[in-house]
């Protein structure tokens, strides 16, 4: 294991990104802002005209925005680990070329995961800036939402890479997107309180990283008090998912790429 060689894989992604960043802006930046405008402002104004003027004590826009931040991190992780990884594995055979050099499979995996980290950092920082402009960040400590969202993305990133490296065609991505990513996006606390779900679904939601990521980003941007054990519990779930994803992802990469 040589981190400098993993760094070369990271550098390759960065060089490639110089040519493809325009498209990624639409998906990872414009789309969460459109959701924020349509749901936060549009739908939010319906909510505040009703008898429930507030959601959990806050205007809907303020409630929604930190949820979208964490959810955007999840979607960025999905976007970066599905087609791009399979393309490099199978269609463009980039990894075959890389492995013909002294770079090893584990270094490829770590380089790719670091690149996802960089992408998460770019996306979440940009979206956080938009949140500040919308005046939905209630305290300077809200900036902690950025590392929390990046960690949320990583909680999915390793696991998604593990999934992608088992695929032989892209059909599985439609399934992952529609049976995991979109259900979590819509039901795991981003748009409405998890307590409004039936009990069984509440339990399922809390088994996923997104619910914990949203709970934390929301607590820090809204400055709601959270007991330290609860905060540590949420963090522990995210770290555990990221760690398990790392181990399985690396193992699957080794399996697929070692000849």
């Amino acid at each position, binding site marked *: 294991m040589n981190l400098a060689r993993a760094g070369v894989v990271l550098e390759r992604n960065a060089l490639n990104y110089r040519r493809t960043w*325009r498209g990624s802006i639409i998906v990872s930046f414009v789309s969460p802002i459109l959701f924020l405008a349509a*749901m936060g402002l*549009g*739908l939010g104004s319906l909510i505040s005209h009703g008898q429930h003027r507030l959601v959990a004590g806050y205007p809907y826009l303020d409630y929604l925005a930190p949820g979208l931040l964490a959810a955007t991190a999840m979607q960025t992780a999905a976007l970066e680990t599905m087609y791009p990884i399979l393309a490099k594995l199978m269609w463009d055979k980039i990894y075959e070329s890389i492995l013909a050099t002294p770079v090893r499979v584990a270094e490829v995996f770590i380089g790719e995961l670091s690149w996802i980290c960089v992408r998460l950092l770019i996306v979440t920082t940009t979206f956080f800036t938009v949140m500040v402009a919308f005046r939905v960040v209630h305290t300077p400590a809200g900036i902690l939402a950025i590392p929390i969202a990046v960690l949320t993305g990583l909680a999915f990133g390793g696991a998604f890479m593990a999934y992608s490296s088992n695929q032989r065609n892209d*059909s599985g991505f*439609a399934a992952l997107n529609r049976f995991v990513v979109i259900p979590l996006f819509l*039901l795991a606390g981003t748009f*409405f309180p998890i307590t*409004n*779900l039936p009990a069984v679904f509440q339990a399922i939601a809390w088994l996923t990283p997104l619910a914990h990521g949203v709970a934390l980003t929301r607590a820090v941007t809204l400055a709601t008090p959270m007991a330290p054990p609860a905060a540590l519990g949420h963090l522990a779930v995210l770290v555990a998912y990221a760690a398990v994803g790392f181990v399985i992802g690396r193992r699957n990469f080794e399996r697929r790429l070692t000849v």
Partner: protein
Amino acid sequence: MAVLQGLRALPLPVGFRAAHIIERNLIHYRRHWIIIFSGFFEPLLYLLGIGYGVGSLVPAIHVPGGQTLRYAVFVAPALMASSAMNGAVYETSFNFFFKLKHMKIFDAALTTPMGVGDVALGEIGWAVARGSVYAIGFLVVMTALGLNASPSAILALPAAMLLGFTFASIGTATTTFVRTWQDFDLVQLILLPLFLFSATFTPISLYPAPLQVVIEATPLYHGVDLIRGLTTGALGPGLVVDVAYLVVLAAIGLTIAGWRMRALLLK
């Protein structure tokens, strides 16, 4: 081969050459059925998350015409419209492009007695079929959940098929201008605002007047207005305008698609 013969046994009008394209796509999807199957759940998840989840925070919606609707009743027809749009657009964007530029399916088809018109009609027919399957499934779910307020809801199905046809036509026309996969990012940039702002989740009366004018010029808005009118029973002359708009746009899309495909395939 057995499956091929099995499919041939389907009552496809074989004299109608475009049917061969539909048959080809059916056979192709035997191995990728999960893509079509999973697509059905996308609007359903929005119905659960936004219609019911966020809907529990939203009071009843007052729509033009004086009706008051439960939020889920308001959102469901819009999601039915978007399901028909999605089915038609998924097929005529990425899939159509892949067949046109990479698999060269249509070049192969043209070496048979099929003409460009057959190919275009087959592809559009297939896209409408996928959108229609989604719309039928969604309408069944709406009925089961009691989200149809009027018997005229049954007409929402042909309305969704018309909407699917309009999007399939303009989708095909648009894709003939696409040069690389990156160009599809621009297509996404058009589709997402259509999905979010076409009176899907909120009445457009909430928006500033100039924005309302822009929204009223877009196709999904007319599809939503039409289908919502039919499922809620708010029937009026506005629905005729919606139908006319969708028919005219479909005709324009079809004309451009035919003209462009001739230019691309008969070089």
